[in-house]
């Protein structure tokens, strides 16, 4: 029987394994050095915050794997030998495969800062990072202050985590406003305010110069590039993004036969079918890099659901139905402390948007609620929406994007897309009134209709 070996037990690898099992009887082995069982990486923060225990982050009970005949192997793969179709582990054990899938995820970025490997300096990605954080920042007596470097999604999560244990946090953000490479200015500004509202010491336009050690090789302080200010701290969180976790692939390269090596750039290079340059070797999830970006998507997408979708897709291919990876309309979500964020379609920040992309922005006068709708200047075509503090129905926006609706249509039927819990105050009226004022239109909001929501697309 064909043996499929998957390196990595994250969402991509596990989704792939589940779907292969649904469609076939192939032998499946998942290899991981991190944990025995699949867990949800995105939930690690909740373990530190005390919302959950680690076991709650595991979506499947431990009998699941045996019942579905998915072998789990704990071990660190040191080398891939595509010629012998074999993996070599750090303890020199070997494992043979017929087909190999690389789903090794990411690792936190480090940019060569002095002191970046001191005790008390950590990223937030692996389970081991969580254990490390628990050791260095169990409470505000042991950790009197933490400094977080890098203003992205993981950075704000780490800030929220530490804040939940009343540990003072200084948050260094390189940009002039939080995440404004992605978010339009109004939204970014609202998040700035919310961070400060939570008594987190947000420092914008601030870079890290170096991390200073004490006599025991532990973090003592950080020094700011711009001002030279020294901030004493016990923990430094490095959250300046992630990059593919593929060092062992690079180590496997044989200079004698470059054509037999797995081709990499920042990630493992794959075509639309998620195939690498080597036959029977595939890559999915965070570690895969598309040779050509798909639409507006980045070549490497370190996003939970794209990992899952690549797993869903590759399973078809491995079970004999060769399918191209074609992610649909872009969507995503996050939570900035208390503010939920969802996005459907593309809304670019001022930094990266084209001149033809217009934005309509509405913000609640008091609450942390706002939306930004992007549309085309010439055709009025709806391009995407960001919502903060309002939940939206994925299905409806996916449909509108497929149908290429214009922005007026989206405004008119906005109530159909609302996904907030029952009894929540809806803001369609205020939003549309403002839209009408700004655009000299006379759109009347339609009432929510189950018939439209459940209409077959």
């Amino acid at each position, binding site marked *: 029987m064909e043996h499929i070996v998957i390196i990595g037990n994250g*969402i991509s690898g596990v989704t792939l394994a589940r*779907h292969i099992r*649904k469609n076939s009887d192939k032998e499946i082995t998942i290899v991981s050095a991190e944990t025995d069982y699949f867990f*949800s990486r*995105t*939930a690690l923060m*909740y*373990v530190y*915050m*005390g*919302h*959950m*225990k680690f076991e*709650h*982050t*595991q*979506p499947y*009970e431990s009998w699941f794997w045996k019942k579905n005949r998915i072998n789990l192997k704990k071990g660190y793969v040191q080398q891939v030998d595509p010629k012998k179709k074999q993996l070599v582990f750090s303890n020199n054990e070997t494992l043979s495969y017929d087909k190999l899938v690389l789903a090794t995820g990411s690792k936190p970025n480090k940019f060569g800062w002095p002191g970046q490997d001191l005790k008390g300096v950590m990223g937030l990605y692996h389970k081991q990072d969580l254990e490390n954080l628990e050791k260095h920042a169990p409470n505000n007596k042991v950790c009197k202050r933490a400094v977080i470097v890098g203003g992205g999604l993981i950075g704000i999560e780490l800030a929220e985590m530490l804040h*939940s*244990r009343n540990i003072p946090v200084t948050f260094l953000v390189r940009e002039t406003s939080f995440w404004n490479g992605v978010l339009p200015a109004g939204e970014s500004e609202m998040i700035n305010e*919310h961070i400060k*509202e*939570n008594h987190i010491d947000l420092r914008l336009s601030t870079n890290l110069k170096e991390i200073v050690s004490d006599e025991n090789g532990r973090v003592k302080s950080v020094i700011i590039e711009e001002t030279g200010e020294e901030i004493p701290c016990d923990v430094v969180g490095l959250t300046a993004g992630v990059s593919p976790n593929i060092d062992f692939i690079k180590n496997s390269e044989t200079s004698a036969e470059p054509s037999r090596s797995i081709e990499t750039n920042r990630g493992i290079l794959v075509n639309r079918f998620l195939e690498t340059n080597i036959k029977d070797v595939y890559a999915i999830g965070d570690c895969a890099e598309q040779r050509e970006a798909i639409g507006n998507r980045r070549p490497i997408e370190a996003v*939970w*659901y794209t990992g*899952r*979708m690549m797993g*869903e*897709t590759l399973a*078809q291919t491995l079970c004999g*139905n060769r399918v*191209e*990876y*074609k*992610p*649909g*309309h872009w*969507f995503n*979500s*996050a*939570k900035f*402390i*208390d503010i*939920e964020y*969802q996005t459907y379609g593309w809304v670019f920040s001022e930094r990266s948007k084209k001149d033809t992309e217009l934005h309509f922005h509405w913000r609640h006068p008091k609450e942390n609620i706002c939306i930004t709708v992007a549309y085309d200047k010439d055709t009025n075509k709806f391009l995407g929406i960001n919502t903060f503090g309002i*939940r*939206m*129905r*994925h*299905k409806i926006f*996916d449909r509108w994007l*497929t149908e290429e609706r214009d922005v007026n249509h989206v405004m008119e039927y906005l109530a159909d897309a609302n*996904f907030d*819990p*029952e*009894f*929540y105050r809806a803001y369609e009226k205020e939003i549309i009134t403002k839209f009408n004022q700004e655009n000299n239109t006379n759109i009347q909001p339609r009432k929510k209709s*189950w018939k439209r*929501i*459940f209409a077959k697309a």
Partner: protein
Amino acid sequence: MKAIKNIGLIIFLTGLSIFTGTIFTGSFSLTTSEVEAFIQEKGYKSDVIRKELIKAAASEKELNIFDFSSRVRAAYQASNDHYDALIARYDAEKNWDKKGEQYQYKIYGKPHTLSYELAKKAGKGYVKDNAGMFWWLTFGLGIIGALLFILPNFVLLGPAGIKNNGIYLESATNRGWIAWLVLIYLVSFYLVLYFMADYVVNWTYILDPISEFLNGGQASQWFVYGFLYCVIMIVMAARMYIKYRHNKYQVVRTTSVLFFQIVFAFLIPEIMASLGAPGYDFKNAFPLDYDFFFEWNLDSLSQSGAIGIFILVWGMILTLIIVPVMVYFFGKRWYCSWVCGCGGLAETLGDPYRQHSDKSLKAWKLERWLIHSVLVFSLVMTIVTLYCYFSGAQSFLGINSQWIKDTYSFLIGAWFAGVIGTGFYPIFGNRVWCRFGCPLAAYLGLVQRFKSRFRITTNGGQCISCGNCSTYCEQGIDVRAYAQKGENIVRSSCVGCGICSAVCPRGVLKLENGPEQGRINPTEILLGNDVDLMKLVNQK
């Protein structure tokens, strides 16, 4: 703020200690004539019981409730032993007439209940004489202390939002020693309340004035329980209002359960009783209201004129029409987490423990077996009871009517719903009864699963499998298992509390009542992936 919390905790514990301590106070004795009046009232014909009870209760000594109780119970026992011995003797002598005569002297009923009735008349002491002051020292301090402990959260929790910080780091909410102490206290409370009510007769004195004001009569242990229930729900609802103040569904729902508990379960029955009508909780539907079709209730209702008949008809309409129709439109949540008293306590007092429900597949299997067995049990009991009521027989299908009623009342009514159902909150979660035992929930669940517009919609591909929804599901539903597959949740056990939706960090879940078509939507490939692939896989 922290200091206010701590002071509140101390005040609360003081109130709780005084409340508990009152059990041990007071002295219990009656005069001979009072005992004789009691015997007359109860219609006891035995001379032995008269003699024994006078010896036991009309004592010179200062008896506390425990001594009093054991002496009274011993008196009953002695009397019954005496006649049992006679019965045995005449039986041996084959003197059937004499043997038959003895039965009228026997005393039926639970010894602790008889002791309670006597003790209620026999108590004297500081607590009884100063009921008002003791109300303040027990309920008053408890309420003030608890509110001082809860209200600072408005500031301490920070900006409105889901703040489950530290739940798994604290003893009280992570099955630590505090949780076990609370379990022991609650279980003891229920054991005493259900089986040894005489021990807590002092509590009834504290509430006599309120009871007299409401219904004209003295407080019973059930009045104490009902009053306490309402007080706890109100105080813990304040906690809910603060914790979920950003979530209007939770605010409205909490108000609803509070209203139905206070007005329907507590005030209306009390007022009805004061008007001489049978006290009835108009929202308590059979088979949760398992004794609705018991002989004593049918007799009592049929003898209460128009209001009795109305209740009888209402009770049947409630179960047969209102309940299923409402479940069709709104799901069982309309009852279980908006109206029901058990649900009301679970959603207020129980909220800090909701994370402890078991999410394993095993627990789900156990749940289905148990809850449907209880439903069958309650129906069989009712059929037997009704058959015997109308036919005058003692048993039906070989099942003794009295036996099955007693067994159900004891096992399900007292142990499952009370001792386990609430007592186990701190360790096994707040819906043990609702999930594993409630026959009404089983009935509602069947309707919800197979014929309802209610579902929890999963928002396409947004789920990140974090597990907050499953962790905080009080009914032990592995919500994530559905959400991460893009499937709607239509489980029979879902009581629609809405917390999964509230704790979801990605806006994935929404409770809603929509068209039946498309309600159940098994998917393999989630929304957002290649359209062709979704179709290909999902349509086969």
